[in-house]
Each structure stands twice: as structure tokens, then as C-alpha cells.
């Protein structure tokens, strides 16, 4: 690593003007992230032309801080309103919203902010010191390995099934089924589109997510607001800054989730939406009292938050080490580098080191800005819980309509969102959790595409999965996960324990 470039990079970032841009970018990012349907990718694409005329330090600082801010912003709406602002915040809903219902919204936001900060910082440091090293790992993940990752991810459905396993599996199955809508990647045949062009590229995952979480929540709030005349306003007496004791207890969890986020981020084809579920699942696996998950466990909140923010640095690793954008957001950041005369390729860290290190430092500095801005603003955000339910419900529905329209500028998507909303409402009434369905929707396309590609590459034999060491390990891990959650493991373990 060339230390002069390293220094030049940090000097490019640390000017008053740039710090101002970083704070502005973080704020904008948090706002975009908090709005369901408005994504970091969208905001980056809109901001990109503005940065054309700026110097590299200023432009990249603003873009990086927006990306970092948006990765955190999604959790604000998830915790306060039970509506994830970004797909990556879907797992945050599970324990974040129960905490806010218990009047601990401030605490929840504080922990999520702190976990996001730690995750983001970890990934920034990984980016700074280990990008070329980890970059090599990226190329090891082809379709065969990606399929194994997806299979491992699918096993999460089992552990998300609160209460009835059957209804959890059903929900996951519906998710997988819905994910097959659209053009088959291998043959180009449209499936389950009923000849409707708007369905050719499949059902936009974000549209389904907004419908499944937000509309049922709005309807439930409306139900509630009619019933109770006297409404106890949530007193926000709890403190925003997490207690040192809490942080200490969460640190192993946050570190584990951060590592999960970095790795998931660097695999091309998986991102924050996948990483948060992986982290949630592992937090639950390592927890002593699994029954508290889904009822407001801080560990279940910190894990997805640390993971989805550490994806930022993780997904930049292939971008910086190899010139391969790991996600649609990093593709735009790569575009920003190109504007400054850099062609995408593996020489970003050497030939173009000064600009590249500027980007890396901008990510790191943006995380500190996130902590500061977040602390100032989340107190303001918490006041949402004081607004009467009826108003909140209407606001949620308006946001859903705007958000689902904004994704593809399509009214068809708005209708689709409402259809998912009604289905989600029925699911809740039927005691079915939408979380497994979301996992199915995220991983279905990854699993199907990578399976078909693996079959083409391997000449149609399943041996390809055994021949790849990475895929084999991941598949065995998946098998272990399944066995672990069935009574079979208990039986085996107790047999071994008896003689002792």
C-alpha cells in the first residue's frame, strides 16, 4: 500500500467544505433511506451529474456519505412504523418495532445507530487494509458457489417461523413462487406474466416488500385507532445513547454481524437485503434465549443493522480491488470514478490510488458523520410515535404509493403493491409471518439463476456442487442448519450426553 496515496486520500476528504458535503450527504441519505421505495441507488444516480463539476474529493465524499446514510436510514421507519424504508431493513422490523411498541423507541434507534456505525466502520477499515486480499475471494464466487449461498440463506426460513413451522414454510414457499414471475434468464420465456409486459422483468422486490409490511401495518393502525379513544402517547423517557453495559453485551454480536455483512457484500449478487437476514439468523443461533427474538430483543435489532451497514464497505471491495461493481449502488459509484478519468479495472488502487483512497476515506468519515447526525436527528424522529395512529396510517399509505411508483415510474407497480398489501394483511390475520416470504423473494431469483448457470457450466451434473470446496462447505452448513432445527439433533445429542 502506497502511504503517500493513503495520505493524499484523507487530505482530499478532510476539508471544511467536504465535511459539510458529507453531513449533507448523510442527511439526504438518511431521508432517502427512511422513505419506503426511495433507494440509495436512485439518489446516487440523481446526485451523480451534480458531482461532475466538483473535484474528486468533494464529489466522492458526497456520494459515499449518501450511500452510508441510506443504509442506516431504512431502519428508522422500520423501528418506528413497522415499515422498512429499504429492503435491507426488512429484518430490522422483527425486533425493532416490538421495542418501539414497548415505549423503547429511543433505545432501539440508539442501538441501531450504534450498530450501524460499528458495522460501517468495520467494513471501512476492511476496505482500507484488506481490499486487494479480499478481492481475490470475490472471483472464487461463481454461479456454483452463489447457489450454495442461496441454499444456506433459504434455511433461514425455518428459523424465522415463529409459532407454526408449517405456516412459515408456506410463507417462504409463496415467496419463492412469486419470485419466479418474469422472463426466464436462460430461455427468455416469460413465465406467469399472463402476456402482461409490466411483469416481464419480474415483480420488483421492493414493491412486494412495501406492500407486505407497510399496508398491513397501516390497516392495523386504523383498526386500533377506532377502538381506543384514550390513547397513551408514547413517552420517550428512555435515553438515545445506549448504556455501556448494553454495548458490551452486544459487541460480539455486532462484530459477527459486521463480518457477515462484509462477506455478503463482497459476493457479487448478494447485498444488504441478504446480509441482514443472515446476521439475524446467526444472532438467534448464538443467543441463549431464542424465545425473546421477535418480541424486542436488542440482539435481533443490532445484528441486521450492523450487517446492512457493513455491506457498504464489503460491496465496494470488488469495485475497488477488481473494478467490478458488486451492486447497483456501487456501479454508480464506479461511474463517479469514471467521470474523473478512471476506467474500471483492477488498477484502481495502484494507478488511480489517490482518487480511490479518497473514496475509501470518504466512506470511513461518513460513518462518523452518521453517528453525529443520527444522534441529533433520531430524537426528532421518535416524535412520530406521538402522532395519533390514524394520521400515521394515512401517511404510511401515501408513502407507499409514492415509493412504489418511484421505483419504475409505473402505476402498475402501485396496484401490485396494494395487492401485496391486502395479501399481507390476510397473512397477519391468518397468523402467518411475512418474513419468510421476504427471504424467499430475495433469494429465489439468485438460487434459480445460479442453479441453471451451474447446470450449464457443469454439463448437467450435480457433481459440480461437490467439486467446489466453497460450495460443498456452504451446502453442508445448510444441511446442518436444517438438522439443527429439527428434533433429530436433540435426539442425537441427548444420546451422547446420557452416558456422561
Amino acid at each position, binding site marked *: 500500500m502506497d502511504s503517500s496515496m493513503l495520505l493524499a486520500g484523507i487530505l482530499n476528504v478532510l476539508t471544511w467544505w467536504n465535511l459539510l458535503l458529507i453531513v449533507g450527504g448523510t442527511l439526504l441519505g438518511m431521508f432517502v433511506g427512511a422513505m419506503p421505495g426511495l433507494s440509495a441507488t436512485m439518489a446516487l444516480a440523481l446526485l*451523480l451529474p451534480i458531482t461532475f463539476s466538483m473535484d474528486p474529493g468533494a464529489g466522492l465524499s458526497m456520494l459515499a456519505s449518501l450511500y452510508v446514510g441510506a443504509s442506516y436510514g431504512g431502519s428508522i421507519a422500520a423501528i418506528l412504523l413497522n415499515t422498512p424504508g429499504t429492503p435491507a431493513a426488512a429484518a430490522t422490523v422483527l425486533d425493532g418495532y416490538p421495542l418501539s411498541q414497548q415505549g423503547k423507541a429511543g433505545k432501539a434507534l440508539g442501538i441501531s445507530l450504534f450498530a450501524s456505525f460499528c458495522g460501517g466502520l468495520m467494513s471501512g477499515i476492511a476496505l482500507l487494509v484488506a481490499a486487494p486480499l479480499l478481492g481475490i475471494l470475490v*472471483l472464487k464466487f461463481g*454461479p456454483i458457489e452463489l447457489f450454495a449461498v442461496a441454499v444456506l440463506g433459504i434455511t433461514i426460513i425455518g428459523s424465522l417461523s415463529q409459532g407454526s413451522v408449517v405456516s412459515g414454510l408456506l410463507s417462504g414457499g409463496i415467496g419463492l413462487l412469486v419470485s419466479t414471475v418474469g422472463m426466464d434468464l*436462460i430461455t427468455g420465456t416469460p413465465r406467469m406474466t399472463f402476456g402482461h409486459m409490466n411483469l416481464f422483468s419480474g415483480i420488483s422486490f421492493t414493491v412486494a416488500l412495501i406492500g407486505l409490511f407497510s399496508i398491513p401495518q397501516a390497516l392495523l393502525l386504523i383498526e386500533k385507532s377506532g377502538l381506543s379513544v384514550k390513547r397513551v402517547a408514547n413517552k420517550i423517557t428512555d435515553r438515545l445513547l445506549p448504556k455501556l453495559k448494553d454495548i458490551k453485551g452486544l459487541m460480539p454480536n455486532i462484530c459477527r454481524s459486521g463480518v457477515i455483512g462484509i462477506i455478503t457484500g463482497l459476493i457479487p449478487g448478494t447485498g444488504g437485503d441478504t446480509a441482514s437476514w443472515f446476521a439475524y439468523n446467526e444472532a438467534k443461533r448464538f443467543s441463549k434465549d431464542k424465545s425473546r427474538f421477535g418480541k424486542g430483543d436488542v440482539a435481533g435489532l443490532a445484528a441486521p443493522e450492523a450487517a446492512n451497514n457493513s455491506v457498504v464497505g464489503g460491496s465496494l471491495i470488488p469495485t475497488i480491488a477488481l473494478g467490478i461493481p458488486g451492486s447497483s449502488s456501487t456501479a454508480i459509484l464506479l461511474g463517479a470514478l469514471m467521470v474523473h478519468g478512471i476506467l474500471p479495472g483492477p488498477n484502481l488502487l495502484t494507478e488511480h490510488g489517490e482518487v480511490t483512497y479518497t473514496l475509501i476515506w470518504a466512506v470511513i468519515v461518513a460513518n462518523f458523520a452518521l453517528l453525529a447526525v443520527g444522534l441529533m436527528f433520531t430524537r426528532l424522529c421518535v416524535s412520530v410515535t406521538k402522532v395519533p395512529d390514524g394520521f400515521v396510517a394515512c401517511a404510511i399509505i401515501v408513502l407507499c404509493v409514492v415509493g412504489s411508483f418511484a421505483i419504475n415510474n*409505473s402505476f402498475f407497480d402501485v396496484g401490485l403493491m396494494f395487492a401485496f398489501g391486502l395479501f399481507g394483511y390476510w397473512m397477519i390475520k391468518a397468523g402467518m409471518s411475512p418474513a419468510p416470504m421476504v427471504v424467499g423473494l430475495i433469494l429465489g431469483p439468485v438460487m434459480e439463476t445460479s442453479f441453471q448457470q451451474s447446470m450449464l457450466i457443469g454439463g448437467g451434473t450435480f457433481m459440480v456442487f461437490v467439486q467446489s470446496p466453497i460450495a460443498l462447505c456452504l451446502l453442508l452448513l445448510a444441511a446442518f442448519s436444517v438438522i439443527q432445527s429439527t428434533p433429530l439433533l436433540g435426539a442425537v445429542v441427548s444420546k451422547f450426553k446420557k452416558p456422561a
Partner: protein
Amino acid sequence: MKKLLLPASLSLLALTAAIPLSASAEYSVTDEVKVLQGFQAGGGSDALAQLAQPFLRDILGVNFVNEYIPGAAGAIAWTRLGNQSPKDGSVISITNTPMLMTNYIINDAINYNIDQLTPIANVVTDPGVIVVHPDSPYQTIEDLLQAAEENPGRITIGNSGVGGDDYFSTIMVENATGLKFEKVPFSGDGPSATAAMGGQIDASFNNVGIVYGHITADSLRPLAVFSEERLPMLPDTPTLKEVGYDVVNGSSRGYSAPAGIPDEARDELIAAFEELATNEEFLALAEERAFYIDIITGDDYMDMMKRMEETFIEIWENVEDDA
């Protein structure tokens, strides 16, 4: 609600920030042209818009407003252009070839075609290229073809997806050589190139603009290009024509309007693109951003589309017969 308008106002800000003001109003039909984009903001089409439209605005003295309607590989936007847009020259679209034609050739449910359009001008063409892992045993294009002859259907060739230019390039090579490859579709040029870099596939049929950085950094090795002549940036890479197979293909982007727009609108738009072709500042900026300028206007652009349509219809009929 004020806050919700932020992204919209941002994009306006982007327009005004990127474009210097011009006083001369030479476009006679309207003072604002809507540009339908069939892909997400920030993608390849958007990059062309950001490059060309500031110059077009100066030449024509009108504002260009982008509207992004992604979905169905651009087909939603192009259906809207052909079937539902006013035919007064106030709406145009960025048209990607061959995707513009292959969309409806492959899919009966897509009901627009190029007869419903007024092709204005092609602007950029990214020639096709065959790349392999740097340590690949195939040193030349002949090596690769030889291997395919010895292992029919077992040499894996990545492409950017069914219906894309690289997919059809592969079939064109198959038809020209009589060989069979295993075609592995990926979701875009990037993932296909990455798979070649990781050694998961034998070769990737890709585009020069996507992989040039990797070629210069020796993480991918070019075997042949699908252009008429050797490319200045890859002087040592033979064309497929040199090897004896007449396969020329690439991914192009240009602008088209709906059919039946007033003649004056068409002529003024075409004149603007012809002026663009000689604008030094534009050409320099294009080179800096790694665009391969290939300006073909009016009837010539229509001919280019017609030729492609004919070729791809024929290819696709054969593919369907085989299936």
C-alpha cells in the same frame, strides 16, 4: 410533502447544473423535449444522455427532460414511444440496438416494431469482443474454435442475457462455423466478464467498453473483435472477418422519435446530431468517458435497424426450429 419532491427537484438541479445556458432557439416545434429511457437512471443509456444532451441543448436551444421507465429490457418505454406518444417531435427515446428489435422478435407479447419509429441518429456503438481468462489455454481465436470442434457443446461461453447482442453474436459465430457452444446467460455484461475473470466459463462474448479496463490490466485477454476493422485501442486483436467468418456485431445506442413526426422536426433533430459529430469538445469528452462514437443519422440509421431486424429474425427462427 415538500421533502418528497426532493429527488425530483434534484434531477432538475442536475439538468441545470450540467448544462450551460444557450440563447439561440433553433428547434421550431417545441421548447422542451422529453426523452424516454427504458432503463434505470445511472445505467449505460443514462450515461449517453448525460454525455450528449447538454450539447444537443446548446445546438437546438431546447431543454431535454429525462423520464425513466425501466422494465422488460426497455420494451415498456419503447411501446410507449411507438404507440402512445404525441407525434409532434416533443417526445424521443434512447433506442438500444439490437435490443430494440430482439425484444419483439423473441417475444410475441411485445407489440411495437421499428416501423412505428422515426430513427433519428445512432450515437455510440460498443463493438463485441471475445475475452478469456489471462491463463486460459486458448491463445488465439482458432484455439477456441478448435476446442469447440473437439468438444461439441462443452465449451462454455458467457453472454449478457438471452436476446442481448452477445447472445446473438454467439449464435452468429455458431452459424458461421458450424460449431456448437454451451451458451451461459448472465444478468448483464458485467457478471459475464466477472465469470471469465474467475475462470468459471471458458470465454465471455462481451463489449469492448465494458472490459477494456480489464484488458489493459491483464485480468482478461481478448481473442477477437466483432468489428469491420481492427480497433485502434486493440491493434493486436484480430477481427473475426480476418479469421474468415463474416460476423460483425455490437451494442449501439441512439435516438428515435415516433413515426409520423413533422418533417421539420425530423430534419432539425438530424441536423443537430450531424453537428454533434463534428463537435471537438463533445468528441473529446466522449473519448474521456470511453464511448465509441458512431454517428449514423436518418435513413442510414433506419437501414441499419432494418438490416439488423432481418438478420435477427432469421437467426431466431433457426433457434426456435432447433428447440
